[in-house]
């Protein structure tokens, strides 16, 4: 690795929120307590599909301690959704009025003086339902005679997406070998350690403050304004510490909505915290999918054509599911050059919990299918599985026809390093094998259909008289460390020590607009905004230095490690803090303020840049019981210039733990619309003794679009693991597993099928 040329970037630093978090001082929405605060609980539908005939709340209101009961009829009844520019995607009232469409859907909410009374009140609310026939599988829901879940939506087809380039039929003709497979991908729960939570406080001056566990205070401020009939600026969303998001916390949820509605009725603070069970059954989850993949290749392994047809289980509402539908089709072509490609995606409503974005956003599902099939094709043709990938890999500058331009791309190097690593491993014991998966992922989803088509970030850098820098960002830290990463970029750009930076985020009253933490956008987009703001502030500061010293501001002056100096003669200079004091003394009483923003321009609609990786998973299979264990996980990773060193390692290991869960642990069966394991005993999250050691091989690239050449790290890393695990199983046993997560019973059954001579399951 080349020596680090930066003072702050890519060094091991303490997380800027570290002290509050390790000392128990960090206050999450879960901890917020306001004077006179009431506690809210939500009554939920027991039926997957039913018309609401009547709701009688009189008995509940009589219960001592109950202050209010609301139903959908007490709201504006707005059909809302995250992609507001497309009304047909805004289909969810949250407190539903006419119909319930999934088990767990909110039908009423209670505010009481304590949780226990609120819960007792739920039992006193009398809801009359007209139970309707339901359908919980997309392949059933799409049939002509299936129950219609949303009025006017024929065959429950909520959204379709189509991606195509080249002549697919012709390309298949050219292929020497064609293979097709069907796959079934499960859902997954975000399972944030902090469940959905909100404290809403409406005051007599008609202002609403909402503390909430969110990935985007900006979105929530606007969404709440839309459904409550308030001005956005009369709503303050506060999220100082958020206990995890993973894609599940930037849409409006029932905690925020019901707490706000109740608070507005009572002008008292109302707190709603989901139980873990509610968090499992009544939030949106990773999108389950049926995947059909047909691939044609030349006998030397050159990729010719791919055709994919995907049916996703959309659940009851759209949420971010429309985007997941597109991205899965987009990333299903990654990271390879296809002569011709065709993807048709159908998102189908069903009477089960809605599905939406979750870390990886459709790509882990896409990789599970694509990367395994590629290994199977390589095996069918007697080709090396690294070489077949190398032959077709994305390269820097490649144009995904009509879709995207690849900027920096370290995929080739990733393949080389993993190939070396595998060779060095040598022969493995019986029933153990290494499986690989390549992947490429967006660094900042450009798409935004909330209020403008384009994504944006902004930042403000203010230098105080003592040299301390207030960095205001709208980017939201949900644990991924964006506060630290952005502080590091700010410090590096300004040339000051990291401890000078104070980050302000998570408060719409004080922070500039930013779409928030989703789509892997914050390092690149907010990072660019911060860099620009810091450069602006630095320039203003250096103007004083230039006036003082007579050095040229562009060529001769710089700041590094708190030292303002002449670039050629660094000993000539002064302390940054002293310069600030002098500079501000000469001003009109203001501090130095730098402003920055970033909007990707002419970078397509997906992303301005792409991260790349190749992951090798070493797994062991107990062939008699089907039990899997992951021995180790090694990833060659291209995220451009690493910024937050400890953050990067944490993202890699954390992503691996979540993606491994998707691969073999986090089974989430839904039967007749009911989540069968809505608790942490039956829903298996990996624990410390089962977590493998992870190794990271950093690949050096520079991404011109990113601040200092940086790209995303942390979401792309969820893409390869399930696929790599599947490939490990294939190489150890010959089994071709087409369902995720891969459960031991499936492996045992697959062995039996194989013995019977039934071929691959």
């Amino acid at each position, binding site marked *: 690795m080349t020596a680090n040329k930066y003072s702050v970037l890519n060094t091991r630093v303490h997380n800027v929120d570290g002290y509050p978090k390790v000392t128990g001082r960090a206050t999450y929405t879960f901890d917020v307590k306001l004077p006179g605060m009431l506690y809210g609980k939500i009554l939920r539908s027991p039926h997957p599909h039913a018309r609401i005939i009547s709701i009688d709340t009189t008995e509940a209101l009589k219960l001592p301690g109950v202050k209010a009961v609301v139903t959908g009829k007490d709201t504006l009844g707005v059909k809302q959704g995250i992609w507001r520019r497309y009304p047909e995607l805004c289909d969810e009232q949250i407190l539903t009025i006419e119909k319930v469409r999934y088990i767990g859907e909110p039908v009423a909410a209670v505010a009481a003086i304590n949780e226990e009374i609120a819960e007792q009140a739920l039992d006193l609310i009398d809801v009359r339902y007209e139970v309707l026939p339901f359908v919980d599988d997309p392949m059933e829901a799409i049939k002509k005679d299936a129950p219609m879940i949303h009025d006017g939506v024929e065959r429950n087809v909520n959204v379709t997406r189509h991606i195509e380039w080249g002549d697919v039929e012709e390309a298949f003709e050219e292929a020497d070998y064609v293979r097709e497979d069907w796959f079934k991908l499960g859902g997954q729960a975000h399972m944030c350690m902090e469940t959905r939570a909100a404290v809403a406080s409406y005051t007599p001056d008609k202002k609403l403050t909402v503390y909430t566990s969110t990935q985007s205070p900006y979105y929530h401020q606007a969404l709440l304004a839309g459904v409550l009939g308030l001005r956005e600026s009369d709503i303050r969303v506060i999220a100082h510490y958020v206990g*995890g998001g993973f894609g599940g916390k930037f849409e409006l949820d029932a905690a925020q909505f019901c707490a706000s509605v109740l608070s507005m009725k009572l002008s008292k603070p109302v707190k709603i915290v989901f139980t873990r069970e509610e968090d499992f059954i009544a939030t949106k989850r990773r999108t389950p999918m049926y995947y059909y993949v047909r691939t044609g290749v030349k006998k030397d392994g050159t990729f010719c054509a791919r055709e994919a047809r995907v049916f996703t289980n959309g659940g009851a509402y759209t949420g971010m599911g429309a985007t997941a539908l597109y991205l899965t089709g987009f990333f299903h072509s990654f990271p390879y050059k296809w002569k011709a490609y065709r993807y048709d995606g159908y998102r189908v409503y069903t009477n089960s919990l809605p599905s939406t974005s979750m870390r990886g956003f459709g790509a882990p599902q896409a990789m599970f299918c694509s990367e395994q099939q590629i290994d199977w094709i390589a095996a069918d043709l007697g080709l090396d599985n690294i070489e077949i990938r190398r032959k077709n890999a994305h390269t820097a500058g490649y144009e995904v026809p009509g879709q995207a331009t690849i900027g920096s791309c370290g995929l080739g190097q990733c393949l080389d390093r993993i190939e070396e690593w595998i060779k060095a491993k040598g022969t493995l014991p019986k029933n153990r094998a290494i499986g690989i998966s390549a992947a490429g992922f967006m660094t900042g989803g450009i798409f935004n259909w909330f209020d403008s088509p384009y994504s944006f970030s902004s930042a403000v850098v203010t230098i105080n008289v003592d040299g301390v820098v207030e960095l205001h960002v709208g980017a939201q830290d949900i644990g991924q460390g964006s506060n630290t990463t952005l502080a590091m970029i700010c410090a590096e750009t300004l040339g000051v020590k990291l401890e000078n930076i104070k980050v302000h985020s998570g408060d719409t009253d004080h922070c500039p607009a930013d779409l928030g933490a989703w789509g892997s956008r914050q390092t690149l987009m907010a990072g660019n905004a911060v860099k620009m703001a810091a450069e602006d502030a630095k320039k203003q500061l250096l103007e004083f230095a230039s006036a003082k010293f007579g050095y040229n501001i562009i060529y001769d002056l710089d700041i590094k490690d708190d030292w303002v100096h002449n670039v050629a003669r660094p000993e000539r200079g002064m302390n940054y803090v002293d310069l600030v004091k002098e500079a501000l003394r000469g001003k009109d009483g203001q501090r130095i303020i730098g402003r920055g923003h970033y909007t990707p321009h002419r970078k397509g609609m997906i992303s301005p840049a792409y991260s790349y990786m190749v992951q090798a998973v070493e797994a062991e299979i107990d062939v008699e019981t089907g039990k899997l264990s992951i021995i180790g996980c090694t990833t060659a990773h291209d995220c451009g210039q690493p910024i937050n060193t400890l953050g990067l390692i*944490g993202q890699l290991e*954390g992503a691996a733990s979540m993606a491994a869960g998707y691969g073999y642990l986090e089974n989430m069966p839904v039967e007749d619309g009911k989540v069968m394991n809505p608790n942490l005993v039956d829903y298996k999250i990996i624990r410390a003794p089962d977590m493998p050691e992870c190794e990271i091989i950093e690949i050096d690239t520079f991404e011109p679009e990113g601040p200092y050449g940086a790209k995303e790290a942390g979401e792309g890393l969820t893409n390869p693991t399930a696929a790599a695990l599947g490939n490990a199983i294939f190489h150890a046993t010959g089994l071709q597993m087409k369902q995720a997560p891969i459960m031991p019973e499936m492996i045992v059954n697959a062995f039996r099928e194989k013995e019977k001579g039934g071929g691959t399951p």
Partner: protein
Amino acid sequence: MEKQLLRFYVNDQEYELFINPKTLLVEALRDHLGFTGTKRGCDTASCGVCTVMVNGMAVKGCSVLAVQVNGMNVTTIEGLEKDGKLDPIQSAFLDEGAFQCGFCTSGMIMSARAFLNETPVPKDTMEIRRGIEGNLCRCTGYNSIVRAIDAVAKGKYRGVCDDSK
């Protein structure tokens, strides 16, 4: 239902509560005494974010009736630092980046502290992993946490902080 008098120590400070006996230890700590460092994250005693020490033993605050700790000393995350000086485990967590969203961190650090008190020299990192087996983390994948605990066990913080608790 008759309320019960509970007299106990939290972080070496005596407290007296008159409470419904069904009050869980975590509720007594958070809701009655305001120690919100300890969190709650599930309904089935599975996640461990509510872990505190009772007479030095790691227990889940959601699975202990508060009245059962009458006369005992409960240590919460707030009680680990001494006069502004961090416990070595806290310092190690900072150095290793052994947390992300931080919601599991209080409970995780309490489990780690209890584990190292009992097993100051773990025989290998698997033993450390088993020491925090009862604590779920969705963000880190545990390995940075194990590195932090291992660093303390290997004596990296001796002399820097008092690690002989």
